[in-house]
Structures are given as structure tokens and as C-alpha cells.
């Protein structure tokens, strides 16, 4: 048996990943009646195609990034980097893990959208599910191919000039890795859009349209064939590339920057919070700055006539996203560290929740300010209160899960966050 697969199975079994994968499916089942009124608004072939395309893009994008995470920046790499590898066996094990480990994603989508089978007919729903599954396979295959291709490109002397042009402020050897997932998503996204339009055409009577369904999956298979050719030369070489990138980033941080941590004044007398804030600022900075970006978009929506409703819809989705952050923070905490430090898990969870909530305020504040200026205090208060409540609920849930499940909390939170979102939307709908 493939040694990597055997170890991955053992680890997954002991981490309870099989049980954790049931949670999203359970959540999808719970979402079914909640999502029914929302799905009732999806009428006609064009609306179904639009929904199918977006859901399939979401799934494909998730899988492209997951494949990148597994083969380039995965938790296995620092372990395997100390030893010679069997590249094809490792690739096969990682592909298997990607395909089986996230199977709950297309299945969850299938369950959550099942009311469409009654509303629009089983063929419509079946078409949607088939496109999503095809995009799932496409995302995995393309993800592995572009990730390994990104390593090849980073070393290619012929591409050095182009990559230097595209590098911006990032280290130039990182450029191809930055753009690789985007390239994968672009290719699979285009194939997915064609597959969705093929299904629409098939439902309208053009039976050849069903063949288009397989395009993203076929692309995925081609990607896997390419990845298999690339793995022997480029999996191991990614190690030196990553060390170089990380060292370049470390060197770029001045001593003053290294001391400065966003919101560190919140952590006076609370060392666990300071640790969470440092980790967030240094390792998850996109979550910190991204909150203000999401808040800015929400503020634009809040400025319109339907401001409070739009702000609540967008803002609640954005703040509930921050329930994933405690799990992301836990991913950077070695399990033995808290044991060694003698810190209680509840303290760490509370600190992760507080740090995540502090970051999530970047979403709430611009929206609240826009509502206050445009619609007045009476409109702003309920929305800010609602968003604040959703944020606290989301990060609290995420942090609680992280203290039990560590980084796997993200998987457990995702469906629960979705349920919270649907409940929030329904609670605030007129």
C-alpha cells in the first residue's frame, strides 16, 4: 500500500476526520428547509444556470486552493522535507486525500440545493449537481497541475523576466506561486461556465449539451496527468523555493515592523490575546486587512435606498466568515505548545475569539458609519447590533470548536456558519 496514504489514513482516523466530515452533510440537511424560500426565487433556465455556475465556481475555487495547500504549503511538507520522497506515490496520496477529504463539499451543495428537484424538476437539479461534481474534479486536477507548474515557472530562466515584471512588492520567486491558483481557477472557471451553459442548452432540448458537463472533469484529469509528470522534478524543489521566499519575507520586515502588532493595546495583561493578535497580524494578515475591504464594500451597499437590508445581507455574510478565523489561528499553534506552556484551552479559545472579533469589527464599523450618515441612528443601530451579535456568535462558535478540534474547526464551522447565516437572513428579512 502507498505509505503516504497509509499514514494519512491513520492520522485522519485518529483525528476523527471521518466524523467531522459528516457535520457539513448534517448541516446541509438542516439548511434544506431554511434555503427553500431562497431557492424558490430561482426560476427559469437562466437563473438555474447562474446559480449552477456560481456554486460550481465556489467549489472549483475551493479545490484549486486546497490542492495548492496540500502540495505546496501543506502540513506534510515540513515533515517530508527531511527525507527522500517517492514523488508519484506522494502525489497519488495527496490527490486521493483531496478528492475524498472534501467530498462533503459537492455532496453538501447537492443536499442544500435539493429543493430545486421539486421546484424545477429532477433533471435541473441533477444537472446542477453534475456540474458541481465535474468542477470539483476539475479544481483538484487543475490545482495540482498549476501548483507544481508554478514551482517549475519559478525556476525557469525563460520566465524570469516576465515574473520579475509581475512580482510587485512580493519576492520575485513567489510570483508564479501567487498567480498559480488564479490561473487554475480561470481555466476551470471557464470550463465550468461552458458546462453550466451546456446543461441549460440540454434542458432546453439540445441533447449534446449534456456532453459539455464533463469538460471541467476532463480538464481535471488532464491536470492530474500533467501533475504526475511534474511531481518527480518539482515537488522537492519547492522546498528550497519556499525557504527562500520565507527568508525574503522575514528579511523585509524591519525591526520596528516586527514589534508592531495591530490592536496590541487590546491585549494588555492578557498574554494569550497578544499571542493570537501577533499570529493573526503576521500569519493571517489578509483576514485583518480584508475585514476593512469587506466593510468598505458593505458601506457602499449601505449608502443606497435599501441600505439597511443590503448592509445586513452582506455584512452578516462577512462577519460570519470570521468564525473561520479561530480555526485558522489554531492551524499555526502546535498541539504540544499549550501543553508545554501550561495554558488552559479555554483561555486560548477566548483569546482567539477576542482577536477574531477585533478583526471582524473592520466589517461592522464602516457599514455602521455609512448607515448612520445616510439613514440615521435609528436605522444604523439595529444593523450594527445585529452584525455585532452575529460576529460574536460566529467567532465564539469558531473558537469553541477550535479548542476541541484545532485547525479542523474550520471544517466543522463552515456548515454551522452557513446555518447561522441563513437564520440571520431569515431573521432580518421583512
Amino acid at each position, binding site marked *: 500500500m502507498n*505509505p503516504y496514504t497509509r499514514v494519512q489514513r491513520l*492520522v485522519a482516523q485518529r483525528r476523527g476526520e471521518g466524523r467531522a466530515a459528516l457535520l457539513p452533510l448534517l448541516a446541509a440537511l438542516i439548511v434544506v428547509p431554511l434555503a427553500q424560500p431562497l431557492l424558490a426565487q430561482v426560476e427559469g433556465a437562466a437563473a438555474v444556470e447562474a446559480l449552477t455556475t456560481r456554486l460550481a465556481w465556489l467549489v472549483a475555487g475551493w479545490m484549486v486552493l486546497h490542492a495548492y495547500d496540500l502540495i505546496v504549503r501543506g502540513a506534510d511538507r515540513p515533515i517530508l522535507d527531511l527525507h527522500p*520522497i517517492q514523488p508519484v506515490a506522494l502525489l497519488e496520496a495527496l490527490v486521493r486525500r483531496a478528492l475524498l477529504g472534501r467530498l462533503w463539499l459537492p455532496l453538501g451543495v447537492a443536499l442544500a440545493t435539493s429543493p430545486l428537484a421539486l421546484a424545477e424538476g429532477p433533471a435541473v437539479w441533477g444537472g446542477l449537481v453534475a456540474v458541481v461534481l465535474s468542477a470539483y474534479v476539475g479544481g483538484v486536477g487543475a490545482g495540482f497541475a498549476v501548483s507544481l507548474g508554478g514551482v517549475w515557472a519559478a525556476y525557469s530562466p525563460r520566465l524570469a523576466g516576465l515574473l520579475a515584471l509581475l512580482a510587485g512588492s512580493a519576492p520575485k520567486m513567489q510570483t508564479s506561486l501567487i498567480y498559480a491558483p488564479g490561473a487554475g481557477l480561470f481555466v476551470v472557471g471557464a470550463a465550468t461556465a461552458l458546462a453550466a451553459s451546456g446543461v441549460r442548452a440540454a434542458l432546453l432540448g439540445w441533447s449534446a449539451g449534456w456532453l459539455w458537463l464533463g469538460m471541467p472533469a476532463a480538464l481535471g484529469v488532464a491536470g492530474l496527468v500533467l501533475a504526475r509528470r511534474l511531481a518527480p522534478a518539482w515537488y522537492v524543489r519547492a522546498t528550497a523555493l519556499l525557504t527562500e521566499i520565507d527568508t525574503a519575507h522575514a*528579511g523585509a520586515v524591519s525591526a520596528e515592523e516586527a514589534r508592531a502588532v495591530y490592536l496590541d493595546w487590546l491585549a494588555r495583561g492578557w498574554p494569550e490575546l497578544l499571542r493570537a493578535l501577533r499570529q493573526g497580524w503576521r500569519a493571517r494578515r489578509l483576514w485583518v486587512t480584508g475585514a476593512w475591504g469587506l466593510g468598505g464594500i458593505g458601506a457602499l451597499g449601505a449608502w443606497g435606498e435599501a441600505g439597511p437590508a443590503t448592509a445586513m445581507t452582506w455584512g452578516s455574510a462577512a462577519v460570519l466568515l470570521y468564525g473561520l478565523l479561530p480555526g485558522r489561528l489554531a492551524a499555526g499553534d502546535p498541539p504540544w505548545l499549550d501543553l*508545554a506552556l501550561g495554558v488552559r484551552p479555554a483561555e486560548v479559545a477566548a483569546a482567539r475569539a477576542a482577536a477574531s472579533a477585533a478583526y471582524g469589527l473592520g466589517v461592522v464599523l464602516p457599514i455602521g458609519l455609512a448607515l448612520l450618515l445616510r439613514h440615521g441612528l435609528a436605522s444604523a443601530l439595529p444593523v450594527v447590533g445585529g452584525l455585532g451579535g452575529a460576529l460574536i456568535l460566529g467567532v465564539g462558535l469558531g473558537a469553541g470548536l477550535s479548542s476541541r478540534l484545532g485547525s479542523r474547526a474550520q471544517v466543522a464551522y463552515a456548515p454551522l456558519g452557513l446555518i447561522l447565516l441563513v437564520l440571520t437572513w431569515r431573521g432580518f428579512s421583512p
Partner: protein
Amino acid sequence: MSGPVLVVDKARRTYGKIVAVDEVSLTVHPGEFVGLVGPNGAGKSTTIKMITGQLLPTAGSIRVGGIDVATDPNGARAKVGYVPEEPALYDYLTAREMVAFVAELRGGGDVDAALEIAGLGADADRYIREYSQGMRRKTALAAAMVARPPLLVLDESLNGLDPPSADRVVAALRAAAAAGAAVVLSTHVLDTLAVVADRLVMIGKGRVIADGPISELPRLRGLF
């Protein structure tokens, strides 16, 4: 194996304008126990990373067991057992399972003997996530030694170990060297090496500033 196990030939590593390692040359033969010493930031870890293929030299070459780490990094890895300062391990495996996994990747090895030498005999069937940092290092050492690679490289691996554990690790390394493996142990604690190393290589500001037998320790200490 005849000839040197490790040949570092004018290896240079730069980060932009910063020169981390400047034309370091080093040759290590089978059975030799070499201490790589120098103050923090001297370039020891960068040199170790280049030897183990974690980082490529900007110029110069490094050959392990006759294999160039830049052109055949996977082949070179098979010749090196590497224990970093903070080893990454599968936390949900036992030490025995981890070492057996590594033995399989490396084409075989005596798992029980490696665990025993590293001093993990009684704890080998506990999950690694329950281990202290010292026990994690011992597990990494057992994994590095299990297939008896011709070169063992340890980066600050004695730091934080209690004295009996450090003694045991040192004894294991001496035994490996006696059996023909070359050992390169990096540390900034000179005294540790005084009793175990055959030869000291001192690195300062990215260059080799002294390279000689342990008998020259008093002179080297003056430089340190």
C-alpha cells in the same frame, strides 16, 4: 564509502545585498564527527539548510555522497539524516509508527534499534502529540538514523535537552560515527562539542574562520 561524504565548495548564499554565507568550503569524511560552531547569526543554519537541500546556494556547489544537492535534491536527501532544531512530525502517529514510516521511505532500517539508541524504547508507542520537545527531538533523531544514512546533520539539536537525554543523544551520535557515518552537529554552545567532536569548524559572519581538530580548542575558544 570511499572519499568524502560531504563536499561544500565555495558555497555562497545571498539575500539581495545581504551575504548570509560567503564562500564556505568544507569537506567531511566517513566516521568524522564535526562540530559546526559560531555565534547566533553567523551563518551556521544557512549552511546547514544548504547542506540538507532546504535552500540552494546562490553560488558554489554542495555534494552529499557524491550527489549535487542542486541538481538531484531528492537523491541527496537519501544520503542525509537531518534533525532540525524544531522537527516537524506527525503528531497523531506514535514514535514507532513515525520511524517505521521513514524507514519505508528510505528503503528499510531497524526501527527498534533506532528507537532504542535514541532513548525512546519505553515511550515509543505513545502519540507524538503527547511528547515534550526533548522527546520530539529524540524521535526525529531516531527517524534520521533508522536507515543509517552516510551523513547525519543536526541543527542545534541538543538545545533544551536535559543532561541525561543530551548524553544519550551524544552517545548515539558517537556510535553512528564509529559505525562509519559522518556527523555534523551545529551548536552555539562550544563546551558541548569539546567532549564529542573530532573537529571543529567555526563560522563567523558567513565565513569559515577556523577549521581544526579538537585539540586546538583553546585557540578556537579565543576566537569565539
